[in-house]
């Protein structure tokens, strides 16, 4: 805690010094002037996606419901209750009763809304009854995204000493991802150059991402899978699509399946729809989109978060067309991404702005945290980052405020409690063995499920037969009708 404060203090002082230094220079004044011009210029109606509030995640996802119920608190309760239903797994038998309860609460003058509400609740119940049919009884802990394992592909594409910050970017993400639980066997780290053992490194065998040098990223326990000249476009595409040669070791393969969430982070020098690899070749946005499409065809991922920190980064994800991919980039077309600050002892810039601000948020996240990607994207400030970050979520199925950061950066696995042992006997124990099999308890679990603020539930899932759901619907509709007629 204290070291964190010290770090922050030093960091702030350094930034202040840097800012004062820059303010006097013309370059900075020009940059600010450019930004101001751009912001005025983008106030037109046909603004590109990157500069709309949605790109920064500033607009709420539930704009549509605001027209119904901003004034009436109980209506908004019902609306949020409707939206909080998870139709997929938990089919508690208490939900019809929950709806009566809410309807009874709503004793206001807006009886028209009450009628709409019970019709909506009727439809939802019908929907639920169809879905809740053949479910096993399982007790445990499940996230709502449907993934069972996490992978991370972290790529630094530039070589040479002055690109120290790209290696530092990648190693910072590596450290974050490991800290939040993804094991080394599920991380593929590609570093195009070795800056820690570069003869120009004043602090050999270390890589720092901050001028205060409090945290060595290259300490022990770093496993680089593709190093130096092995980081090529061909190797990258082969690794993503799975078409590696048969003698590739396991640590260099991406062994994801249809329930893996993959974080793909790339950094380096880039431009309009291309990213430069090793100063010799380029990968284009089409190649990347193609690789993702092949992964999608072969069901090699559940969801992908594609993060890229280069100049004109947002163009790299513009050609992707497979579902369940969420992309974020550091700067838009014709805009460069800037480094954050320089360490004057090492002599080069040590971290990029976009990655710096991402890390600032991620350092506050730990394995058990509930923070969502929406919150991460809300912290993007184009003035601080000095470029316009973009977010592409049109291919992504879940709303961003329901996606946890640990869904991509961490490794929170689902859990099922084992309630019984299989009654095995050994030959000499046929008569002596006591029966230890505990039969699963089959009583009905009818308490209400409270709408939790967590994004996950530990709950008991029961099998619902169709008949009881239908009875529930019928009773719900009768009571709803009675209430609405008496209120009107």
């Amino acid at each position, binding site marked *: 805690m204290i070291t964190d404060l010290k770090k922050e203090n030093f960091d702030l002082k350094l930034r202040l010094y840097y800012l004062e230094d820059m303010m006097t220079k013309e370059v900075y004044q020009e940059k600010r002037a450019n930004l101001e011009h751009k912001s005025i210029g983008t106030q037109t109606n046909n603004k590109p996606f990157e500069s709309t509030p949605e790109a920064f995640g500033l607009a709420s996802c539930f704009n549509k419901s605001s027209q119904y119920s901003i004034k009436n608190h109980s209506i908004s309760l019902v609306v949020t209750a409707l939206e909080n239903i998870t139709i997929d797994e938990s089919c508690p038998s208490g939900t019809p009763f929950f709806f009566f309860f809410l309807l009874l609460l709503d004793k206001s003058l807006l009886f028209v809304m009450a009628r709409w509400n019970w019709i909506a609740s009727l439809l939802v119940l019908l929907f639920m009854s169809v879905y809740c049919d053949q479910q096993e009884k399982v007790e445990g802990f499940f996230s709502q995204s449907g993934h069972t394992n996490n992978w991370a592909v972290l790529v630094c594409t530039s070589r040479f000493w002055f690109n120290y910050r790209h290696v530092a970017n990648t190693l910072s993400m590596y450290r974050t991802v490991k800290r939040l639980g993804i094991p080394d066997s599920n991380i593929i780290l590609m570093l195009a150059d070795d800056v820690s053992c570069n003869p120009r490194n004043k602090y050999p065998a270390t890589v720092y991402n901050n001028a205060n040098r409090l945290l060595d990223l290259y300490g022990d326990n770093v496993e680089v899978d593709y190093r130096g000249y092995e980081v090529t476009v061909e190797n990258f595409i082969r690794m993503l699509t799975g078409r590696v040669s048969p003698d590739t070791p396991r640590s260099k393969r991406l062994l994801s399946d249809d329930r893996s969430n993959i974080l793909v982070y790339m950094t380096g020098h880039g431009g309009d729809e291309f990213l430069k690899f090793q100063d010799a070749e380029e990968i284009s946005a089409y190649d990347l989109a193609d690789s993702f499409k092949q992964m999608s065809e072969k069901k090699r991922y559940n969801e992908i978060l594609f993060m890229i920190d280069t100049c004109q980064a947002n163009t790299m994800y513009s050609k992707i067309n497979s579902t369940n991919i969420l992309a974020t980039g550091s700067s838009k077309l014709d805009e460069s991404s800037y480094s954050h600050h320089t360490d004057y002892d090492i002599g080069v810039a040590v971290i990029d702005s976009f990655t710096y601000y991402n890390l600032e948020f991620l350092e506050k996240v730990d394995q058990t945290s509930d923070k969502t990607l929406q919150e991460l994207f809300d912290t993007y400030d184009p003035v601080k980052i000095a470029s316009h970050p973009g977010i592409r979520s049109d291919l992504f199925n879940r709303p961003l405020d329901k996606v946890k950061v640990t869904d991509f950066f961490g490794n929170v696995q689902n859990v099922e409690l084992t309630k019984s042992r299989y009654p095995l006997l050994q030959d000499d124990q046929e008569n002596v063995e006591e029966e230890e*099999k505990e039969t699963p308890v089959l009583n009905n679990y009818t308490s209400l499920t409270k709408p939790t603020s967590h994004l996950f539930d530990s709950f008991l899932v029961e099998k619902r037969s169709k008949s009881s759901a239908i009875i529930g619907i019928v009773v719900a509709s009768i009571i709803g009708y009675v209430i609405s007629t008496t209120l009107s």
Partner: protein
Amino acid sequence: MSDDSKVTRKVVLAFWSVVLLGLPFWWKTTEVYRANLPFAEIDVWQTRQACDFVLPTQFTIYIPSTTSISDLSTSINQQLLNTFNSKFRDNFPIHVDVQQWNQDEQPEEKTAPIGNYFIYVSESDKVDIHVGNQRTSHIKIKDMTRITETLSTIIPPVYLGQYENLGNIACHIEKKDKNDVTSMRVLKYSSQYETTFSLMNNNPENKRIDWEIREAVHSYLTPFLKEVSAVSNFTIDSQIQNYAPLSLKPKYKEREGRPNYYYFEPQHLPHFVNSAEWNLASTITSYPSINFILYVPSQEESPLRIHDSKDQPLLTSAFLIPRWGGITIKNPPKTSEQEYRFTKKDLQPIMKIFISQLRSLIGIHDLETNIHKQLPSDYQVTFEPATKTGITVLEKDNLIRMRTLENVVNTISTLKSLAQLVDEIPNMVVQDHINSKVRQSLDTLTLASEALAKENYVEALQRSVQGIELAEKAFFDPTMVSMLYFPDEHKYAIYMPLFVPISVPLVMAFLKLVKQSKQQKLKKE
């Protein structure tokens, strides 16, 4: 003049003939080699044939000799088919054969190929169903005159319960439910799995722990694996890790009159496995690995238990991570000895937990869950567990059927993706060995469906495994990487500096030639 012009004409024509002769050569040699893939056949499989599978089942029902069996077989058959309410009725032909037996005798075990089941019926005062762990089961019914109705209510839930699922899988009618628990838990099919048993000792300073895992695996697990080897092979390794810390602290529960203990709640369990510090990854094989962990907490944190969602401690202290493996917590005995060794007998309850977890991970559908809701409440059903091997014959049959159909469907979808890929990227090289693998894969599919029709389930499974492996090898062949993005502008940019400087004088000369010959013709006329 005309001589010169004739020579000029011949020279220009000579140049042009070289160009024209060379053009097809150039086109052919710069073409990307693409073997002929059987697109049409793949399409046919995709749209129709997978759904045309046939999984026959045969029941032999033994009626006590006191009742008559005249035309009982056809009536039971009819009634079964009527009650078997499924849209896949044609895919699951059921054949019923009725014979007589003496009610006082014991039902005898019979061996038969997969798909054959023997049901012994006797009379009693209440309905009791005892399903054995081999192919026979003993059903006691009340009223012999209503035997057909009773049997047709009993047989579908017990024997044919999974058929609806199988039909859905084969005909691609899958519920698109991402959060379905079963599909999340079951490992994807692989012909080989690597199982690792790990003993994690939190603090060896208090107690050094060892275990007789080799003997325990040999007596308890090997029979199970031998039975399942029809479907997949398993390699087993084990390890002991000392100083295996947890990443979070358990909570402390105080109870009056009973000893206090530490516990974890279900929402903390996802962080139990400390992947960063426990070395669980295998670097040996690329086959999927299943990890089973036996965790021994340190003296400061024992006894350690797991609470369920109702805040009751679990008897088994075990939990399963879908598609990954299982974890059991065993508290160290409170002796003051420095060493403790888990004997084979101590490991028996633990191996029982591991076997039940392994069963769910492989995809063995437990018949006992939900059976009570599908039968009338006064029917008693008992399933005899397989105490020697860990998997009953009925479960094994279901597993073989499910994996066969899954493999067939996955093979078809892989081949379809391959065909689509080759179609969409005209630049992609398709070599001959890929073509041969694809054709072999299609052949195995045909053989598999033929074997299914002939009730030869084991061969059908093997063929389906061959099919999926060939299809995967073809799809993931290293040569299937498309050439990098090569748009038309690049093509123009490459060829123009070569061809334009040559073609300009050629074209000009040709035009001049044509003009000259026209003038000459005019002159002549």
